[in-house]
Structure formats: C-alpha cells, structure tokens
C-alpha cells in the first residue's frame, strides 16, 4: 500500500492547532460508555486514547464470592448481547475443571442455543455498524430479526436478555416442545433477509467507500494485539476456536460440517453465494471485518440446522445441572470459547471449596478495543466511529 495513493494521506494547507476532543462517554457512536480522547488537527485525528471503566462492576471480585452456578447470571451481564455464549463459556470452564462431559443431546442443544446467540449478536453488530456510518434503517431491520430470536429464547428460558440458560452441567431445562420447528421456520425466513442486508450495506457504494481500506490491520498486528473472533479472521488469520480450540469445546462441534470464515487466496468459503469482495477493500479493513460477521451469520444458520437434526435424533438427557453448592475439585483451569465477539476466556482457580478462589474473565472486546489507538492513527474523525464500530465492542464485556 503506497503512502501517496492512500486516500487518508491528507495534505495540510493551513497550519491549525491541535485540539483534544472527548468522544464519549456520552456519544452516540461509542457503543455504550466508552470514552475516546481524540487528538485532532482539524478533521484529522492523530491519536486516539480509549478510556474504559465506566461500566466496571467488579465481576471478578463477585466471582470470588459466589459458587459457579450463582455466578452464571453475572456472565450474562458481561457481553449482554450474547448472554448465552457467556453462560456457555463459564459452564464449560467449570466443566473442564470438574472433568464433566455433557450428554450428546445437551451438546447439540448447546450448539443450537449458542449459534442462535451468535446470530442475534452479529445482527446487532451489523445494525449498529450501519448506525455508526449514518444509516438508521438496517439497525431496525436487524432488531426486527433479533426480536424473533429473543422470542425463541424467551420461550426457552423466560428471559430476553439475561438468560442464565446454559449452565454448568448442561442447561436449566430442555427445549420446549415445538420450539425446534419454530426455530427452523425462523431460519428459513432469515436466510433471504440476509441477502437484503448485503444489498443495503455490504454492496452499497457509499458503505464501501466508508469502510474499504479504512482501519487496515495486518494479520501480524491482529495477533500481536491478541484480537480474536471476526476481527482476527477479518485480517486473514485462519483461527476459530470451534475448530482449533480445546477438546472440551471442539467436542461440541464434533462431526459438524463448517468452514472457518476467513479469506484464502482472495476468496471466502462459499463466497459465490454472496457479494464479491470489492476491489477497494484491503484484507484486514473495516469492510472485511463486517463481511466476516455477515458470513458468520450464514455459517451459524447452517450450524443450527445441523444441530437441530442431531438434537432431534439424539437420545437421552440434555444434561444434569450441577448442584448449587457442590464442591469444586482442586486445581486451576483456563478455557476460551468462541463467543460472537471473539475468544471469551475464563480462568478459574479452585482450592477445593464450593466457591472459586479466583475467577478471571478474559474478554474478547477488551483485547479487540486495545487495537483502536493503533488503527485510528492519522485517520479522519468520521473514520473513528467506522473503525470502532467494525471492532463491534460491548462495554459490559470490556469493563466487566
């Protein structure tokens, strides 16, 4: 990428004074209570410093005072847009410590629920990204579809945001009768709608202008900064914990057919079905991060369908929830799962009591956000929401 031809190389015609501007914590496009301090020279941002902590609720300290099952509701409130996946991450980490293996039916149930959670989360990510770029309608379309997922979740566990459904040992209840059919009907309806979103955003020329070639992050930078999820794969790193993770997690996806959504030789898996990569887009830019998310929605739809098939034929129980005050074995474990926003890790130290000695949550958005100051160097003000939006952060997860 040459320096001269890059659109972001701005020629200064007037020497102006630098200005420090607070973007947030009350700003429409910082996704909650994030505060970015911009050092600007006119429209050009020379430096961005994120300031966090406005939503810090001491989740880790709370985790040191509650039994694992009591802590489940707190995981909901980390990434509140993907509560199911947070539940799953915590549950699996405890199960890893307890060396527990859920029954087959429970595994498939977990795949259904967590992939649905991923769809819901990515829909919000997509809509909110449109909002960051100044178009309002996709946001409402995304919420319309997400509502239907929330309806399904409500039927499953009674809650629409903080589910506490997947729990250590399995789930709190089996799927209600008739739920699977409703879910399948929803997927059939969602699939063509995703095509509409591609027309509205992915292939929109203004959208491409605003995102292609903006916030380019090389694979090396992405790894160096510990980014994960669609942000990492958007930079072309072939890594997905559902395939490359620890066995206790990959066992869930055993026998499922899916390809990791990452660009290889200029192509995405099954990309003939979807809009082609525009020639302005550079691997690792905002457009690719967005596109990976869009493709992951399709991937998740596919996975849910497979899981429904297996779930319907599987026999046995969906799992046995762990007792509330069951003592944990001594030891310490660290487990990362592929949450919608990236790798959500839980580190648990147990000294043999019912309450863990230490509960640590490694959040994906936290690491993804740390790359902003690197990406937002010498960009325009309008690029800052575009870049931060493409990282798709949730402050609840970052501040914990």
């Amino acid at each position, binding site marked *: *990428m040459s*320096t001269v031809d*890059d659109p*972001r*190389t*701005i*020629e*200064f*015609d*007037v*020497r*102006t*004074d630098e200005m420090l501007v607070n973007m947030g914590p009350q700003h429409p496009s910082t996704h909650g209570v994030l505060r970015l301090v911009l050092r600007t020279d006119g429209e*050009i941002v*020379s430096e961005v410093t994120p300031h966090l902590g406005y939503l810090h609720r001491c989740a880790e300290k709370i985790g040191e005072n509650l039994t694992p099952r009591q802590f489940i509701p707190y995981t909901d409130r980390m990434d509140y847009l993907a509560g199911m996946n947070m539940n799953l991450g915590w549950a699996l980490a405890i199960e890893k410590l307890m060396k527990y293996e859920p029954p087959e039916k429970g595994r498939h149930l977990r795949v259904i629920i967590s992939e649905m959670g991923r769809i819901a989360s990515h829909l919000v990510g997509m809509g909110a990204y449109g909002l960051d770029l100044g178009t309002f309608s996709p946001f409402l379309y995304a919420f319309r579809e997400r509502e239907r997922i929330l309806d399904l979740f409500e039927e499953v566990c009674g809650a629409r945001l903080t589910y506490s459904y997947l729990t250590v040992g399995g789930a709190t209840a089996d799927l209600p009768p008739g739920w699977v059919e409703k879910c399948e009907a929803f997927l059939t309806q969602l699939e063509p709608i995703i095509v509409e979103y591609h027309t509205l955003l992915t292939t929109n020329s203004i959208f491409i202008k605003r995102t292609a070639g903006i916030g*380019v*992050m*090389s694979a*090396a*930078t992405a790894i160096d900064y510990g980014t994960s999820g669609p942000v990492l794969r958007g930079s072309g790193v072939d890594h997905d914990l559902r395939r490359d993770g620890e066995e206790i997690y990959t066992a869930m996806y055993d026998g499922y057919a899916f390809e990791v959504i990452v660009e290889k030789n200029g192509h995405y898996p099954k990309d003939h079905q979807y809009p082609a990569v525009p020639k302005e887009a550079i691997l690792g830019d905002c457009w690719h991060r967005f596109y990976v998310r869009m493709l992951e929605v399709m991937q998740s739809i596919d996975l849910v369908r497979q899981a429904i098939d297996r779930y319907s034929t599987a026999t046995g129980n969906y799992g046995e929830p762990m007792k509330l005050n069951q003592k944990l074995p001594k030891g310490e474990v660290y487990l990362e799962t592929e949450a919608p926003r990236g790798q959500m890790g839980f580190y648990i130290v147990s000294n043999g009591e019912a309450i863990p000695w230490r509960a640590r949550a490694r959040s994906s958005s936290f690491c993804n956000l740390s790359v902003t100051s*690197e990406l937002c*160097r*010498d960009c325009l003000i309008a690029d800052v929401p575009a870049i931060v939006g493409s990282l798709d952060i949730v402050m609840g997860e970052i501040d914990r």
Partner: protein
Amino acid sequence: MNAIYWPSVFFLLFGAMACGFALAVLLSANIVRMAFYLVMSLAATAGLFFLAGQEFVGAMQLLIYVGGTLVLLIFGVMLTSQERFVNMKTLAGDWVIGMIAGGALLSLLTAAAFSVPEWRGPERAAVENLPIEPNATPIGMGLLGARVDQIGAPADERAGMAGYLFPFEIVSVHLLVVLIGAAYLARAKRRSNPLPTG
C-alpha cells in the same frame, strides 16, 4: 400631509441597517461579531441595490459577496481565532486619529453629495410610474460587447462604447490567476505522517 412613498421607507430601513452595521464593524473588537455585522451590512447593501432597480447586481451581491466571500472570511476567522486574537483591542491613539480623519472625510463626502441639486432625488411623479425593466440581459449583453441600452442612441454618442467584452476577459483571466495564486500561497506545506502499514 403627504402620502408615504414606500420605497423611501425601505431605503431608510436598508440604509440605516447598512450604516449601523458598518459602524458596528468599526466599533466592535470581537472579530467574529465583526464578521457577523459585516454580513448584515452587506446584505442590507444588497437590499439597497434591489431598491435601486438593480436586481441582478443585488442577487450577485448576495450570492458572491455575502454567500461566498464572507463565508470564506469567516472561515479564515475561525481558522485563526485563538483566544488572544478574537478580542484585539485598538489603541486609544489610533481611535482619536481615526475619528478625526474619518469625521472629516465623512462630512466632506456628505456635503459633496448634497451640494449637487440633480443628485438630491427625483420628483415623486417622475419615478412613481416608471416601468420595472429587467436588467439581467442588458448586463449580459454588455459583458459580451453589445450595448442594448445604447441601441437607439445616435452614432456619435455611441462612439467608444464597445461594451465590456475586453474587461470581462481580463477579469476572467484575473480570476484564474487569483485562483492559482491563492492555491499556491496556501499550498501544502507538509504531509501527514506515513501511515502505519500494520
């Protein structure tokens, strides 16, 4: 008891605005307010142009002067306005000298204006029923070198009245030169830091 002549009312209105805001420009020390007063003064001047029957020039004044030049000026003000420049006080001595010179000049000019009887204003009856004549096309034709207002005049009066084609060309070239010159003066001095290739 005489009937009100409405154009006069508007003349007074616009004239007072033009003069008042011009004075405000002079007296204000805040550069941003000065710019605002100047806008109002020049807009009122455009009103005076309309009142004098020069619609085209009035619209031109609004478009180019008020809409273009002054926006540029305010742009400049905003670019250079730091705390210490916004309020830049004039020295007292300057005020005194300025007032004396300005007052003298003003009284001289006003006296001169009213010293010629033909300039004092037409009879009401003479102008009240003058038809409204559009003047955009004559101006346009004048710029192209054809003087439609002189069509009826005898040949000897029209001698040397070749229109304004040549000045028009000169101004066009001048504008081009200015465009290039201004771009050169405010040209790029430096580039942004090389981009992170990451």
